[in-house]
């Protein structure tokens, strides 16, 4: 709690959220260095491609394949945002998140969707993840890049219910797969833009 309060003004994207979580101790600590890479940089092109492919898997709810894109030490964090006075030094509820996950808890969520009794997604939602504002940054380790993106999720259920929209910024840490082919997600911080969510639950991933 104290460390959160002492923190400098939040960046609005990324920052030390993972390190401050009681469950983030295992998370890789690498941070971005320097300015964003040119859009022509091979690493940026690969990172952007990765995000678009991932968005397809999340739209289609191919969660088993999605799980394979995550490292075993992943920290998947979605803090609870709060309105605080300018200069308060924090913008999320100390010690509380919507998601604060490791590979095991994510695998349980995915396993639940695979049962025939996850009623909240039967009939399934129609999902569309719009991914934009992608910026890629080098880190001190050539095997890792930090990628910022904005995501807008449109979630429609049933026929006449109003659809839910979730807007968020994300900071990802991508790690080069050990075989050198492709990237895996090692850390994700989802900064949702609502203090009060306007969706019935988060039976989805961002």
């Amino acid at each position: 709690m104290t460390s959160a309060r002492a923190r400098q003004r939040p960046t609005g994207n990324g920052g030390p959220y993972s390190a401050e979580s009681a469950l983030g101790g295992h998370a890789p600590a690498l941070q971005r260095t320097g300015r964003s890479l040119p859009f022509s940089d091979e690493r940026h092109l690969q990172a952007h491609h990765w995000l678009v492919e991932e968005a397809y898997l999340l739209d289609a709810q191919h969660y088993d394949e999605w799980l394979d894109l995550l490292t075993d030490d992943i920290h998947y964090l979605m803090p609870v945002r709060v309105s605080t006075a300018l200069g308060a030094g924090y913008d999320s509820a100390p010690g509380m998140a919507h998601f604060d996950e490791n590979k095991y808890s994510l695998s349980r969520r995915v396993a639940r969707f695979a049962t025939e009794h996850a009623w909240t997604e039967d009939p399934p939602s129609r999902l569309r993840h719009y991914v934009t504002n992608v910026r890629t940054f080098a880190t001190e380790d050539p095997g890792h890049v930090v990628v910022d993106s904005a995501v807008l999720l449109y979630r429609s259920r049933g026929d006449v219910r109003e659809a839910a929209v979730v807007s968020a910024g994300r900071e990802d840490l991508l790690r080069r797969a050990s075989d050198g082919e492709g990237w895996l997600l090692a850390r994700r911080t989802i900064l949702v833009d609502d203090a009060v969510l306007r969706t019935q639950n988060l039976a989805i991933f961002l």
Partner: protein
Amino acid sequence: MDDQSHLLEEVRRGMIPAHIYNDEEVFRLERERLFSRAWVFVGHESEIPQPGDYVVRRVLEDSFIVARGEDHQVRALFNMCLHRGMQVCRAEMGHASHFRCPYHGWSYRNDGRLVGLPFHKEAYGGEAGFRRKSQTLLPAPALDTYNGLIFVSMDPDAPPLRDYLGDFAFYLDYYTRQSPSGIELRGPQRWRVKANWKIGAENFAGDMYHTPQTHTSVVEIGLFREPKAEKRKDGCTYWAGNGGGTTYKLPPGTLEERLRYVGYPDVMIERMKQVWSPEQLDLVGHDGFMVSAASVFPNLSFVHNWPRVEDSDDVLPFISIRTWQPVGPDETEVLSWFAVDAEAPEEYKALSYKAYLMCFGSTGMFEQDDVENWVSLTSTAGGSMARRLLLNSRMGLLEDDATVVPPLPPERFSGPGEAYVGYGEYNQRHLLRRWADYLERPAESAERIHVGRGGKAVTA
């Protein structure tokens, strides 16, 4: 409501006119007659531990700054400037010695006192025109706490909170007093669902019957040690004072063995033995019941469960506190906190938080399926056909109102109130009967406060 008194009579018989879950007129009465009087939970003292800490919470549309003053006292101050009515504090939480209104700059100390009034002399002629001294932001008409839980009531004549809770306080201690230091809260997660607020309160109060169906999936993925959700029917529901809840039946064993079975470490068990009464200990150790979900009338709920949080056989308990804050007849804002014993080991706190996230709250795997049901129920209740339908909420009762099973005798249930083993809608009926009692009584007019002038007036 006079023309609707038959509606209340039906509710008292355990027959629920389906439209009460989505009806403008009913909601208007709930606002005027229920939320204007009942004790409503707004937060916990651990959320504002230091003088100057505050959180902003609502009771229906009314916003209150719940702040701890320099004198360490907790107050709930109506978040409206005494001048032209601007919202004084627009953050949800923080730390401040003063609140300055952004409109014309009146400022208030964190105990509510008006201390700054620009150009008091020039504009008002000083005290002669506007009595600044003794002016404070309007306090909530009543505020009271139990185990650090902060409640407010819009009724200045509300009974003391302890009397209102009645014998439910016995059960409240399992959730909020596991050591002399009580609990600490984190959160809340907040989200809005298109569901009527009563549905969640009723469900948490006593719906053990939905568990095997609604929550099949969490059992299938191995989140719980018990392989069958039907286990729930071995537990009992109890109602005491102004609240009630559900329990699980634990396997045979001593008090310590049973508390260890749900995942409490020995250091925590030792403290429970210090703070709980012999009867509170007997309910677990002798009778073998462990509290699970519960509700306090009208819209405060609790849950206690013990899932696996890692790929092992160990389970770990968590506690959540939540309010079902009405937004409209078909919309509710859920505020869901994680609560943990303040003296628990840090590692326990971290894993208990993880258990909470996996099971309840905005992402909880239990909660996800609950809300889906409640949203769909609410939308169906809004039409004209629902007005013809009286839902049967009489589970556990025979035609002549005799109970299907007898209440548990004192030698098998050490807690106060009335408890029944197995499925039944006893508690949903208790909750709605109280609801009917409140809705029946016309609202009284409230005292009006004249800002900056002597005397008070009462509305006609």
